[in-house]
């Protein structure tokens, strides 16, 4: 009781909670779940974009895409490290991902059939991720907040790069423009779903807000994203696939149509286009790599033994 109150006071005073600080079980659990999910999203997120590395249309784009996918791996690494400060190992988290117990962002369960998707993912998906993540830079848990600062900086670079790809297509040949529009049509709604269920249906929101793990509601962030993105689409000469999307002078925001929450839950529950392929890919990488990880361990042990033997001999 008293502990919870004192903890909440620290939070309210915007003090950072650090790994060795006492914290309520629920706080730790929420963070582990959220950071793990976030880390997994970075890792699984390498796959849809990785799909185009071997087919990127120019060397410049190929290099940029490779660098981007590498950055995502890097984000995964910081985030796993942040989760490890809460006492959960990377192996454990990986197994939870592969068994389907841990989730990752559903957006990565959509396929990337066209090059334009590489632009759209940068523009919309990284754009939405940034909206979600900027407040996390002030998250009450120190290691997470610090990881997010670094992540956000890179994500906004990716977002601009993605937008630039889409712009090149939108200003290109008719078939390129068509590619860009088709891609926007496919990704728009899934991007809006990235902010999670409507506030009225969101399970974890309230407590997370109190703990300052979260600072805005799902619907607030979604609205921010729409307000920022619709003018960008207009500037490109592309149409957001929502007939109800229009500027509302009274609210000072863009209205939007109803989100298909059945689709959202279907994908969350494993019924999306690529859920099984994504996990199968990660599982194959993990299983095929087992002998490599074992070899590295075995070698490290041999080295340690040899150094130990040398030390003993020297004494």
């Amino acid at each position: 009781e008293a502990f919870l109150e004192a903890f909440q006071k620290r939070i309210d005073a915007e003090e950072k909670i650090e790994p060795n600080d006492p914290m309520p079980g629920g706080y730790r659990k929420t963070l582990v779940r959220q950071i793990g999910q976030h880390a997994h999203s970075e890792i699984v997120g390498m796959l849809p974009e990785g799909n185009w590395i071997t087919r990127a249309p120019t060397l410049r784009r190929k290099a940029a895409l490779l660098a981007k996918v590498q950055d995502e791996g890097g984000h995964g690494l910081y985030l796993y490290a942040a989760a490890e400060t809460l006492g959960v190992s990377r192996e454990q988290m990986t197994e939870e991902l592969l068994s389907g117990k841990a989730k990752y962002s559903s957006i990565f369960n959509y396929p990337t059939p066209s090059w334009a998707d590489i632009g759209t993912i940068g523009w919309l998906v990284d754009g939405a991720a940034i909206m979600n993540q900027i407040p996390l830079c002030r998250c009450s848990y120190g290691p997470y907040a610090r990881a997010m600062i670094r992540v956000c900086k890179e994500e906004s670079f990716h977002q601009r790069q993605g937008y630039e790809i889409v712009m090149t297509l939108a200003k290109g040949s008719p078939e390129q423009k068509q590619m860009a529009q088709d891609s926007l049509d496919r990704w728009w709604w899934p991007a809006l779903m990235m902010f999670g269920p409507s506030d009225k249906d969101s399970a974890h929101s309230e407590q997370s807000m109190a703990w300052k793990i979260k600072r805005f509601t799902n619907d607030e962030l979604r609205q921010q994203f729409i307000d920022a993105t619709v003018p960008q689409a207009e500037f490109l000469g592309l149409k957001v696939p929502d007939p109800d999307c229009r500027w509302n002078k009274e609210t000072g925001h863009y209205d939007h149509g109803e989100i298909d929450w059945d689709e959202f839950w279907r994908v969350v529950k494993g019924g999306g286009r690529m859920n099984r392929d994504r996990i199968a890919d990660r599982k194959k990488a993990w299983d095929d790599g087992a002998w490599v990880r074992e070899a590295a361990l075995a070698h490290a042990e041999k080295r340690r033994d040899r150094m130990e033997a040398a030390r003993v001999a020297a004494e």
Partner: protein
Amino acid sequence: MAGHSPELREALFELLLRLGDDCLILGHRVSEWCGHAPMLEEDLALPNMGLDLIGQARSLYTYAGEVEGNGRTEDDLAYLRNDRQYRNLLLVERPNGDFAHTMLRQLYFAAFMEPYWRATCGSKDETLAGIAGKAVKEMAYHIRHAGQWVIRMGDGTQGSARRMKDAVEELGHYVDEMFGTDAVTDALAAAGIAPDPAALRPDWDRTIEMVFSEANLKQPQIAYPQRGGRDGLHGEDLGHLLAELQYMQRTYPGLNW
């Protein structure tokens, strides 16, 4: 490049294609691992090496286009030549195989290119010397990274040691080609533009020997080393690689991306 005779320019163009193709094809191969590596650290390290190589390819192709003087860009050279016009070593086009094959291939190539670029830093061709100055550091990193893995796998478990041995047996056939010389390399060596590849063999042997002694590996005797890449005589895998690599440019020619 200013001041090179037409023959020398032609040789230089050919050399730039060879080196550019080596870097692009190996960079492409390495990038195929992306998202499928045995551990997250390698999901970072492999694209990193791929990026180094693709960056080098871009500089080399761009300069090749200038030397040729017909206005061809890096993308023209990468995307609009066919299998028979590619000049890369057979080593770099070999399929990834397992992680042992991939790391050994990387070590073999980097152990050749590191002294190659080191020597090229003193090239009479300033542009090439500039490319070399950056690339030599990258290749030193590739030697370290791949070399450590070859040691870990060679001196790891029984299974990993067997896989490393298989890789050594397999890739040994593609080593000699790196050191091959012909009119192109002779002319450029004589002009002080690029090193004589044959002269780099002792360096390469020293690097490999150092790694192999820790990795419990031995260099195999190869009765019939394979060559042909420099003349555009490739194996069957390269065509499939190019079908992927070039698909967009072939399907939508002449657009900006």
